[in-house]
């Protein structure tokens, strides 16, 4: 007599670890893949922040995001050519800025440039950025699946040594927010300290000097370069992202091209939202 079988997963130590990490094993998942997923969760943990949510969605269904491009800064004499570089991937756009206060060097509409090989072809000729390919199979991956991300990061707490000089773990610092009011009173732009409370920040290399020994901790924002761009297997982005309008609204040309009216795709999304919550919203 012919019988069919039913698979029963055997609980092991990895399942116990997965229980602690809220990552149960999937039915068809091998223990090697499961361990890889758990390791990712341990070293790059999930969390409530927007960044963590976007990073960690794929692993919930047993998929792992793929690093595709690494964007570095072109240097001249050891100094980046870009004054205030920024790379951002929004819901629909990829933008590369050499100076945040200026127009982007590249602004690529990911709904129009469909594949990553086209994206690479556009940005590889950048004056300010080096682009390295990390995934040899990148060519026909959808560009719209690039992970929602930004190269500007924030370090919440970094403790300082009780010293007049401290090297931060990150470089390419944008701004610092110290809590030691005694050492950080007056920022100067060379190393000729005059008064107690004078301090100097080497923003390029992430080194801080002060006349009075520092203590406590500080927070700071920095630019993460080389910056790795990931290809999401399960992609998410904030619904209040401004660039989202390019997908769900039609452009109305009144001398200024600006998204104005919901298109059919946008209407269907809004209807789904209203089914869940009928509160009036938005513009």
């Amino acid at each position, binding site marked *: *007599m*012919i*019988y069919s*079988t039913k698979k029963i997963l*055997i609980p092991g130590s990895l399942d116990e670890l997965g229980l602690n990490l809220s990552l149960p094993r999937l039915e068809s998942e091998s223990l*090697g893949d499961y361990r890889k997923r*758990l390791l*990712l969760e*341990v070293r790059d943990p999930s969390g409530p922040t927007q960044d963590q949510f976007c990073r960690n969605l794929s692993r919930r269904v047993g998929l792992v995001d793929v690093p595709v491009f690494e964007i570095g800064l072109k240097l001249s004499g050891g100094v980046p050519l870009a004054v205030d570089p920024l790379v951002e991937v929004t819901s629909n756009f990829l933008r590369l800025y050499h100076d945040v206060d200026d127009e982007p060097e590249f602004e690529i509409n990911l709904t129009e440039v469909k594949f990553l090989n086209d994206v690479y072809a556009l940005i590889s000729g950048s004056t300010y950025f080096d682009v390295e390919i990390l995934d040899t199979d990148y060519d026909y991956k959808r560009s719209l699946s690039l992970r929602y991300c930004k190269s500007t990061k924030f370090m919440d707490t970094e403790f300082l040594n009780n010293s007049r000089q401290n090297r931060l773990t990150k470089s390419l610092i944008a701004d610092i927010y110290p809590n030691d009011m005694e050492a950080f009173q007056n920022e100067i732009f060379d190393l000729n300290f005059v008064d107690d409370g004078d301090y100097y920040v080497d923003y390029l290399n992430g080194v801080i000097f002060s006349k009075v020994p520092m203590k406590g901790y500080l927070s700071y924002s920095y630019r993460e370069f080389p910056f790795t761009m990931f290809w999401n297997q399960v992609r998410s982005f904030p619904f209040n992202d401004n660039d989202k309008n390019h997908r769900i609204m039609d452009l109305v040309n009144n001398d200024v091209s600006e998204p104005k009216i919901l298109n059919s795709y946008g209407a269907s999304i809004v209807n789904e939202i209203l089914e869940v919550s009928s509160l009036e919203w938005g513009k």
Partner: protein
Amino acid sequence: MSFRAQKLLNNFPSWSKARRDRSSVASRVFDSFSTYFDFAHAELVKLKDYNYVLKEGLGHPFVNVVHIDPLAFTVSKSGKVIWEYPTVTADAIELTRVEYLEDLFWSVPTRISELETIAIASFDASSGVIDKPDKLLVRVSGSDTFEKYHPITNPLCPNRHQLIISGKDINGIAWIEHLKIPDDDIYRTENIWSEIDSVEEEGFDGDIELWIHSALGTVKDRYRLGVTDRVEGDLKLNYSYSDYSYLTFYTDIIKSGVNYRTGTVPDVNTDEIWESNLTDLDGLTFEIVDLAINPNSLRYYAVDTDGVIHVYEPNIAVFSPNSLPYTKESVIEIQPLKPSAIFNEEMRLFTWFEKPLYPINSVQIRRVSPSNIVNYLQSDKTWGVGAYSFPYSKDPETALPEETWQDITFNSVFDEFGQWEFYCDARCNGTTYTSFSAVLCEELRSVADFETGLEATGIYFDHADRLCICTANSIVIYQEFGDYYLASEKESLLYLREDYDSVDVT
């Protein structure tokens, strides 16, 4: 024979036969139950890593269940229930019934199947992208000095001996691993690496090699303890070939480089425990290329020059009781250089006038081969069929007992698998005292052989417990299958180890 039995025997004095001679009665008694300690030790090693996400040996992920009609049974006259088990065939393969759950998961694999082939540009993983992300093999060799803290001569020494490896892990996350290096040896990284950026050494001056895998001639068995009558430590295996492939089990005498690598290094730092000759399923010889240990079943897997994988249950043979009688009290003992021999090895043996209480009149030395052929040591130190008695050194009527016999050395060639027995008959004052000692030329026969047809250069188990065969420029990954089933009589269930498309139960 148990590795841990020697640990118990080391409680005896160092001169005692129990501690020195593994063929002694005491050693055999301890062997009878110490194999369970070996098993328990291995389980404790696995348990230590239970909650460690990067552990070796992931276990078995699933079992397949089949609901069948209730099994038929008969009841014997003594009241015992005798079940009638069905014939189970799955995908045209007849499954073998096992009694216990452990046997269902960990019985000898019945077949292997190629999963994937990965091209490898270079097995050297010292820097750059690693073609097959895995835990890396690290060899530290040629160290002259391990730095040691001293308040006057070396006050700044941090007393750390480590490798600092930085790179990216299997998920592309930047990672740094500090690998402790107590001495020149072969290690495995804990992290699974996909790219190496840098490797720095701290506290020693040896040469560092990182490999995806390489047949280095030595494998460390972390699940078993290496114990000799002098030292104990990690069990290591050296594999070689000479007529037959053979394994040498040994352990290091001095474990820590900082204790002896101070500019000069002794020639020998190993203490040999045992040697086993390897044969295939049919008892034939092969030339070994590499050896690996399955982290789940703890079996040894050897690959030969023809690409055939041989699977071994690593149970070292036990000495058998003597085939000829010997006396309770002995005067002269025969001491072999080692308790085990490689096939066709010529080994030196020694007599030891252990108890010079009685004057010696004559000494006869007998040897019994595994096929029960008795030979006598002749005057020219060769072996012959005729009995020969060595005369006393000085007249026993007038000389002191210790002057009547001068210990001798002689050789024996072990050209047959099995237990070789040595008897020494010492005649004193009309009484013959006979001692017994043995040497085992062990044949470790494989329990399964699998042909791959590859020109193998290495074998290992990767981070996901898959069997990998290395060739010159690729790694071929295999999956092992065990076609077994376990019947649950009361629940009318069959548990199958593997996935099958259809299962036929008759």
